[in-house]
């Protein structure tokens, strides 16, 4: 279980996170929604330790992540970055097997390659893709490779940062379905940040709405349409008028 309590983060004069309180139970798929620039990515990076919060605590299964063994902590995570963040200089299979080829649990090259090809197949990519370079792939294929890399070491927790941004609706649907299948199949805890409502409905067990640096609303995805929260209603219906200012 991931627990955030009173997490704040400021960049210069911009107070991005103003006291985030949120709990993500084990095995659940939590989707954070909110407009662009509201700090969703910052929140995710705070949990991973890529950005250090100014105040508040973040704990994983009761242990403060700031004092946890960093390698052991990160070994439990997989992450799909918004742009894929694939390493240009490495072949697709080397990207997927990156963690498997290094560190304490290093596998022989042939075994790591076999796992990488299996994971590529899992995300719907042919084995021939394995020896290509990321620059030779389309945006949708890069996202799938990123997904394969995120699940390669079978992590307990997977983060998805805007998984469908920049994809056509069909490919977005494919990625959403894949994420849902993989999360259910692996029994992983998932945290997704997105402003794509089709992703929310396809991926989420629970939804949290981030606005103005705090969690405005949280609840089961089934309650999303029926909630009276004005922020959620404005966001999911894409209204220009409401409590969320359209010029931010």
């Amino acid at each position, binding site marked *: 279980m991931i627990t955030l309590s009173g997490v704040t983060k400021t960049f210069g004069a911009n107070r991005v996170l103003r006291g985030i309180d949120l709990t993500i139970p084990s095995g659940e798929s939590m989707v954070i929604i909110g407009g662009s620039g509201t700090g969703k990515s910052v929140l995710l*990076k705070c949990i*991973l*330790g*890529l950005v250090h919060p100014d105040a508040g605590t973040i704990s994983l299964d009761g242990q403060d992540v700031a004092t946890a063994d960093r*390698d052991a902590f*990160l*070994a439990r*995570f*997989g*992450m799909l*970055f*918004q*742009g894929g*963040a*694939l*390493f*240009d*200089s490495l072949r697709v299979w080397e990207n997927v097997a*990156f*963690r498997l080829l*290094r*560190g304490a649990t290093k596998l022989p090259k042939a075994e790591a390659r076999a796992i990488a090809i299996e994971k590529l197949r899992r995300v719907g990519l042919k084995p021939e893709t394995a020896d290509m370079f990321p620059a030779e792939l389309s945006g949708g294929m890069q996202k799938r490779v990123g997904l394969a*890399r995120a699940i390669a070491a079978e992590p307990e927790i997977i983060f998805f940062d805007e998984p469908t941004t920049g994809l056509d609706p069909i490919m977005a649907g494919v990625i959403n379905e894949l994420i849902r299948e993989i999360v259910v199949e692996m029994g992983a805890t998932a945290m997704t940040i997105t402003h794509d409502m089709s992703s929310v409905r396809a991926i989420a067990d629970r939804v949290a709405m981030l606005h103005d640096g705090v969690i405005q609303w949280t609840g089961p995805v089934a309650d999303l349409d029926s909630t009276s929260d004005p922020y959620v209603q404005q966001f999911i219906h894409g209204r220009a008028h409401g409590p969320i200012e359209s010029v931010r």
Partner: protein
Amino acid sequence: MSVTALATRPLAALGRPVLHALASVGRVTLFAAQVLAALFRPPFYLREFGHSLMQIGWFSLPMVGLTALFTGGALALQIYSGGARFNAESVVPSIVAIGMARELGPVLGGLMVAARVASSIAAEIGTMKVTEQIDALVTLSTNPLKYLAVPRVLAATLAVPVLVGVGDSIGIAGGWLVGITRLDFNSATYLKNTVDFLEFWDVGSGLVKGAVFGAIVALMGCYFGMNSARGAQGVGAATKKAVVTASIMILAANYALTEMFFTS
């Protein structure tokens, strides 16, 4: 505005860039210390080291070789015409050899490598930063400093002295070629004068300079790449800063090393 505030304004204007410069020096020094400490701690990324060695050493060879060839030739012509003023044309072989080995080989080689390598390292790592590849490394339990900076700094520190050595030889050969084709030197005499007057430390000091310049080039490329701001403009600015800072540091380090080696 009070009189005191008005009086201290020029001081503040002067102090701000000085403080900024000092803070930058501190950050670069800290970065260099972190890279140095990481050099001796596993894991070691041999594949990345080998790749960097090829990129920095092997692929810089044509550029450094051509620079040395033309510099050696021009140096021979200059020394000949200058030496003719006091009938000292015969010093051309020895001065070309000493000049190339002690100064021009390492400095021009270092500057050319700075232009080619510091820029490419800064642009590559800067792009990795803005496309979240460095964040991805962290989430994959890989220390970016160890994976990206250490192999490049080590490769440059080892490769640039070799480039300088090859450059020295090509530069001396350039001088010899001009000497025998344009200045009527006897080939055997030219080579004998070169060998007789060249001492081990002439070459050795240049190779030490090469190692220092190589470390500077890679450190600056990595530092500015890893601290690149967002977007194409950020990467462009990081690249420019890496080349400019590496070039200035090479010239400053060259003076300091020359003082250390030859004025005792």
